[in-house]
């Protein structure tokens, strides 16, 4: 089973998910550990980039 695709997903949803991983609100296996390494200023363009992918 492949990983859930981020390409083309709404940027706001990706930002919200990363914030929830960062704060621990959303349970995770590895995304909490990763999200804590990135600032909101970094997450925004990353989300935008994924949203623009097909």
């Amino acid at each position, binding site marked *: 089973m492949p990983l859930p695709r981020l390409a083309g997903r709404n940027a706001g949803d990706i930002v919200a998910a990363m914030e929830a991983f960062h704060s621990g609100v959303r349970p995770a*296996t*590895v995304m909490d550990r990763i999200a*804590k390494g*990135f*600032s909101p200023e*970094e997450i925004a363009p*990353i989300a935008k980039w994924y949203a623009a992918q097909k």
Partner: protein
Amino acid sequence: MERKTRRQMLRHAGGAIAALAAFPCFAIAQARPRIVIVGGGFAGASCARALRKIDSKLAVTLVEARRTYTAPPLSAGVFGGIRNLAEQQFGYDKIAAAGITVAMARAAAVEPQARTVTLSTGDKVSYDKLVLAPGIEMRFDAISGYDETAAAQAPHAWTTDGAQYEALHRQLEAMDDGGLVAISAPVDPARCPPGPYERASMIAYYLKTRKPRSKLVILDSKDSFIMQRLFQDAWQRFYPGLLEWKSISSGDNIASIDTAAKKIETDFDSYQYAVANVIPPQVAGKIAAAAGVADRTGWCPIDPVTFESLLQKDIHVIGDAAFAGAMPKSAFAAAVEGGLCAAAIVNILGGRPPAAAKLLSNCYSLIAPDYAISTTTVHQPVNGEYVDVAGSGGASPLEAPPQFRAQEAKFADAWFRSATAEIFG
């Protein structure tokens, strides 16, 4: 990715960048800048794909000696009897179809002054920028009796040479029930620090399910290892009495091997083995030393923003061969480095300052078919070195329900499929 002002960049990365920024158009007379990449693994092949993706006008040549790449991540599953070696193997057809010139040859020498690479075929390839992604070279001078000939009898199966994996797999299948499998684990720095313990876990799984009277011993040249509690808790649960870890503190680091007598001597003991998997200490792949980018440690110091060698101009080093502070020697990090290096090179060639970015690594270890753990790190360049981003990363929790471990096992497989599809597909 973090963008910095030009001044911050220069202050941050120091002299190497300042020198480049002072000559933004450094004499690229050709209409198409020529970039040569040596090594078609996770780092080199990622870099080649990223370069073409960012700028299809670049002339990108990938030099790789092997037609078939054997990917080390998840290869432990092959020895566990739960994956086929074919699932680890990839070719370069799709990479060539993406407009990358694939030169099937070994890079024999680099002439930094002339900016050429000499191939084993005798051909010379000119470059404006050279990227070395040579991975690792086994040190055959470190363990008495363990040279290249002995490696055929007691395989390391630690490079991208498929024959090594086949040999170890064949030996495990051929061994009688009741034998001893000995794995030697090397000192750091080495490729994939959790790898020897993941492999031990998977071989223990194979023995438990197929040859249950057999034993496995890890002879470690260290006195502790990464995710030790997580591994040892899982071993206690899955492989009690079967898998034993012995360390240098108890004098059980490998000192010599006699492959004819099938005997390993440690400082204090000796082991009669049925199968030996000797993972010796390592240095950067051979071409690194030949190109003059490896230092006394055997590894290649680089600038963490540009990946340019601190020892040779216009040669960038990525993947396991490179070091700049905390850089994990994982396939995940290598693939990320390939992309970051590609972006830096395109910026430099275009006369723009390269932007500092974060380096992410997420490395899974399979302990049983539905049970994996992982270690995650996020790094950023500070004063010429990668350092951990405070509060980020870490290993899987010590206490977790079975579904959590099973989920990580699924993620390991999914990461491997996604990463290899992106690079080789």
